[in-house]
Structures are given as C-alpha cells and as structure tokens.
C-alpha cells in the first residue's frame, strides 16, 4: 500500500498536476472572492477544460478550486461584509467588525490559516475514515446500495429546503429526467422521441451549467443584485500571519471536526456547520472574553473558517466511499469523475487505489497552495473584488456556451444548457430548490440500476429491502428524515413542541 501511496504522490507532484492544482486554486480564489460567483459555477465552468486531462490532473484542478473557493469566500465576507460563499456567512460576523476597526489584515490572516488548519484536520479524517467506510461498503449488495442511494436522495431532498414538498418535486423531476435514453439494465430506449441525441440520455454538464450559471447570470445582469461596495481600507503584509496556523488551537480543532462531521452528512450544508462552530466557539470562550468575542475577534473568525474548510474533507467521505454527493459541489465533482470514466464508491478503493491516494495527495497539495498563494496575493484579490459585473457576466455567458459546445462539438448540448437555464430560472422564481434536481440527475441512474437488479434477483419481491438488516436501517433513517419535519410541524401547530 505504501508503494501505491508514494507512486500517487509522485504523480500529483508532476509539473502538469502541480500547475493544474495551482490553476484551480487561483480560479477558486477568484470565484470565491467575487460576490455573485459560486464554487459550483466555477466547477461547471472548468468541467469542459477537464475532458482532455487525465483523471489525476482533472481532480488536482477541481480540488484546488474546491478548497480555495471556500477560503476565497471569506475575503469578501471580511472586507465587504458580503460572503463570497454561503459558508462564509459566519466569518462575516466577526471578520467584518475587525476590518471596520482597521484589523482587516489580522482577520484575513486568521481566516486563511484557520481554513488551512480546517482542511488539514478534515483531510486526516478523510484518510483515516474513508478506507474503513469503503471496506464496509464493499460488503453491500445491490439491495443495500439501492437503499443507500434512496437514503441519500431523501436526505438531500428533505434537508435545508424551505418547502419539503417543493424539494421532493424537484428531486422527482430530476429522477424522471434520468429515465431519458437507454435504460441501464437491458439498453431499451425510453422517451427519446426518435432523436439520436437523446439515446445516451441527458448529459450532466449542460444540465449543471444551465441550472447554476444561467440563473446567476440572470441574477447579475437583469436583477442587478450584486452591487458591490468598494473596500476603502489598505492592506500591507498578510503573509506574516502564516505563523498563526496553530493559534487558537482548541477552537480550531473543535470547529474543524464540526465542519468535517456536518460536511459528511449528505444535504446538511456548509452554513449549518459554520454557524454551529461559531456558536460552540462562543460557548467555549471564557465569560470575561465574551464581550470581545461579540465585538469581533480572531476566535470569531478562526472557528467558522476552520469549520468552513473542514467541510471539504467531510463532504468527500460519502462521495468517495459511497458515491453519494452531499452538496452541489461534490455532485459536480462526482459528475467530473464519471466523465473521466471513474465511478466513485467502494469499488473505487478496491479497483483504483492509486487514484484514491492521488485524491488525498491532491487535496493536501491544494490546501498548501491555498495557504501560501492566498496570503502572498491578498492584495490582488482585493482588486478582483472591484471587477464590474458587466465585464464578468458576459464573459461567463460565452464560457457557458462554448463549454457545453465542447462536450461533443455540438450545439445540441448548448440548447439543453439553455433549456435547463430556463428551468433553473423558473424554479428560482417559484421557490423550487435546484439542488435536489441536480443530485437526482447524478444519482438517478445508480438508483434505478440498484433497485431493479435487487428486484430482479429477488424475483420481484419488494420486501427484500426490509429483510436485509443494513438496507432496513437505511430505509428507517430515510423514512425518519422524511417524516420528522412533518411530525414536528404538526406538533408545533398544536403547541406541543
């Protein structure tokens, strides 16, 4: 195993992969720091670029973006009080207060070093936990895998949605979309209307770009919702803060573990983790220092930032070991790996351990790049915040069109992207969440395959999902997740809870 790990390390350290990682980090800082752009959007914009790359180069690029995007989000949160990513919202509370007091450098330095610390803790947990989970999951048969995907879908559709019914409708539509094309068991065409383009189904990429990028372009160009205030202060040397990686250690360890734990739960979402970490850090603060904490201090920045990047490694655990993405970003990452012909899940650990180790190393390299590059180039990102959206958004629009075209050198996919952009806009307008739809599209084919193969082997007996103990546990958790908000709201109405 050690020789595989060393081979993977050398692969990740090859100049091309280092360059890819650095490119991903720079692009991630750009999208993370720019309010109005998201990590998901950054990922979908980079996906077309990854087609011609080998899997390790591709994952180095995307992981670099993933990690740095989270860190970049805190730059605008601290300087402008506009979180670049939803997970940076808690950082804005203390960070912006510090910036207003003229302590922007200290806040940014703390944010970057805490992000690095959080990423390191989550990587350690990923490396320790993932192989064990994958080994356990290898014992799963079709029945258990079917129930597991069902659980993943239920968690994602139910958690964090303002309306559960709308979340479930969104998921159902996503699942229906996956039935277009050849069926996954016997290869019969379904709902293709005789169109050759639909035979292989609807590709992830145009759907992802359509759902994420078009509504955002619309948001910026038409609704003009991203009016960004200027940062008036001045930044000098942020790099010296690199020594602060181990400062406020106990807060960072606890917060990073919170981030990793919450990140590992599909559908739980980053904002939950960062606010939880912020709250726990406040409780951990001695009574005499609470006033200082509430006024905004380094601990108030360190805790949410450590949790923020702790999410990264945590989110990779279910994605890598079970093939269940926990959020839109890991869903896109999963899609990127599938485009490369890799299927994340327990079999990946058995069949392609070299790639698994490459992911671990690429994560480490990405995190180190983020620490050094962000601190060294902080002044540049402050300038990036000032790029007007009327320049940025038209360029992104063209990237979306060409990116989808490059999938198969066909404008069919560009049309699909536009259609899903319209769908995404309508969903936004009428309050339907897009995340369940995206995740259902990613998980749908596996869901159908596992369920149908289970039923074929059990000769059509549906009780097979209840007679297998692990499957039963997954189904009970899924049903609990599904019904608990309904029961809770009924109790609330009656004044019970």
């Amino acid at each position, binding site marked *: 195993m050690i020789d595989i790990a060393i081979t993977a390390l050398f692969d990740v350290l090859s100049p091309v992969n280092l360059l890819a990682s650095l490119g991903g980090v720079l692009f991630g800082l750009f999208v993370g720091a720019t309010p109005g752009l998201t990590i998901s959007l950054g990922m979908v914009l980079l996906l077309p670029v990854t087609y011609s790359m080998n899997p390790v180069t591709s994952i180095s690029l995307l992981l670099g973006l993933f990690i740095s995007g989270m860190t970049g989000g805190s730059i605008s949160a601290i300087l402008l009080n506009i979180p670049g990513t939803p997970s940076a919202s808690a950082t804005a509370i203390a960070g912006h207060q510090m910036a207003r007091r003229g302590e922007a450098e200290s806040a940014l330095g703390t944010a970057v070093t805490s992000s690095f610390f959080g990423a390191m803790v989550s990587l350690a947990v990923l490396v320790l936990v993932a192989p064990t989970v994958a080994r356990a999951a290898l014992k799963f048969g079709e029945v258990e895998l079917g129930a597991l995907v069902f659980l993943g879908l239920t968690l994602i559709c139910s958690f964090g949605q303002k309306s559960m019914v709308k979340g479930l409708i969104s998921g159902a539509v996503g699942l*229906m979309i996956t039935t277009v094309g050849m069926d996954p068991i016997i290869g019969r065409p379904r709902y293709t209307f005789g169109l050759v383009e639909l035979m292989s189904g609807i590709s992830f990429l145009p759907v992802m770009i359509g759902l994420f990028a078009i509504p955002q372009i619309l948001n910026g160009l038409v609704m003009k919702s991203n009016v960004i205030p200027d940062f008036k202060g001045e930044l000098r040397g942020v790099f010296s803060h690199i020594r602060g990686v181990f400062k406020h250690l106990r807060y960072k360890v606890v917060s990073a573990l919170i981030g990793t734990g919450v990140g590992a739960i599909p559908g739980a979402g980053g904002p939950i983790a960062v606010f939880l970490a912020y709250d726990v850090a406040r409780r951990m603060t001695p009574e005499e220092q609470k006033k200082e904490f509430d006024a905004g201090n380094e601990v108030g920045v360190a805790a949410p930032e450590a949790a923020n990047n702790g999410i990264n490694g945590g989110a990779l655990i279910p994605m890598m070991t079970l093939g269940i993405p926990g959020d839109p970003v890991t869903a896109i990452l999963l899609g990127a790996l599938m485009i490369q012909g890799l299927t994340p899940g327990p079999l990946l650990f058995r069949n392609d351990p070299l790639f698994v180790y490459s992911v671990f190393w690429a994560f480490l390299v990405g995190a180190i790049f983020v620490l050094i590059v962000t601190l060294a180039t902080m002044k540049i990102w402050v300038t990036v915040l000032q790029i007007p959206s009327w320049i940025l958004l038209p360029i992104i629009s063209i990237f979306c069109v060409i990116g989808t075209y490059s999938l198969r050198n066909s*404008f069919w996919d560009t049309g699909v992207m536009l259609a899903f952009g319209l769908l995404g806009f309508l969903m936004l307008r009428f309050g339907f969440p897009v995340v369940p739809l995206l995740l259902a599209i990613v998980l749908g084919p596996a869901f159908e395959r596992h369920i149908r193969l289970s039923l074929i082997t059990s000769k059509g007996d549906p009780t097979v999902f209840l007679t297998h103990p692990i499957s039963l546990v997954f189904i009970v958790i899924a049903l609990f997740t599904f019904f608990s908000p309904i029961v809770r709201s009924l109790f609330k109405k009656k004044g019970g809870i």
Partner: protein
Amino acid sequence: MNEKRENIVIGAILLTFASGYAYMTTQLPTRDMPNTVGVDFMPWVFCIFLASMSVLLIVSGIVRRPSDGDAPRPTRVHLTRSQIRGAVILFAIFVVYIALIDVVGFLLVTPPAMFALMYLEGVRRYSRMAVIAIVSTLVIYGLFRYVFEVSIPGIAFL
C-alpha cells in the same frame, strides 16, 4: 398572483406533466422476464411520486388558512415586470447567439452578443464595451481553439 394560487397552478401543471409522462410510459415495453420488473418500473414509481407531490402542492394551496396568505413568502423570488422583460430578452439573446454561431461563426457573432449583454445590464460606455467584447472574444476563442483544441467554427464561411 399570490403564492397560494401559484402553488395550485404549478401543481396542476406538474400533474399534467406527470400524466403526459405516464402516457409515454404506457408505450414502453412491459416486463421481459417473469416475476421481475421491466424498463417501465422506475418511470412508474417516479411518475406516481411526482403526481402525489403535485396533489399535495395543490392541496396545500387550497387548505392554507387565509392568514397564511398574508405571511411573508420565503420560498419564491419576486420579480418586477421590467426584470421579467429583461430575463426574456436575455434568453432571446442566448437563443439568437446559439443559432447564429453555427451559421456565421464564433468570431463574428460573439462580440455583438457580448455587447448586447453589457447593454442589457445598463452600461452605455460604447467604445469600452466594444473593446472588451472584441478582446474577450479573441481570448476565449484562442483559449478553446488552441489550448483546449475545441473545433469552434471561427468564421463559418471562410
């Protein structure tokens, strides 16, 4: 339209969609092997699930107490008439742009499209807009054509 009525209308549209999908599902071949499920099994499951949720959405719209209608509506985004018009124009620009790339070529059709998008955002500094549109087009073309080796039609008739 308030959210209550909106939910009823959307529920009805989704129910119609589910019915259409159900009709197409009836056209699929049924099970191929005895005692097992065929290609139409999962589509039926998804279809029934969507139909049930749509009914639930309609019912939630009908049985909602009148006081609920006055409450803030957190799930949807309110758009003004001009924003809806802007969205329609944006989609129109996209449709025309995509339709023309193949016919005219990326290099000729992209600068006007970018210019139109900038104009849509309300910018009126025409010379700056033109320079940015042309330079960005050339950079994006060069990047995809020569670095990523995507065969974008540069100028279609050349």
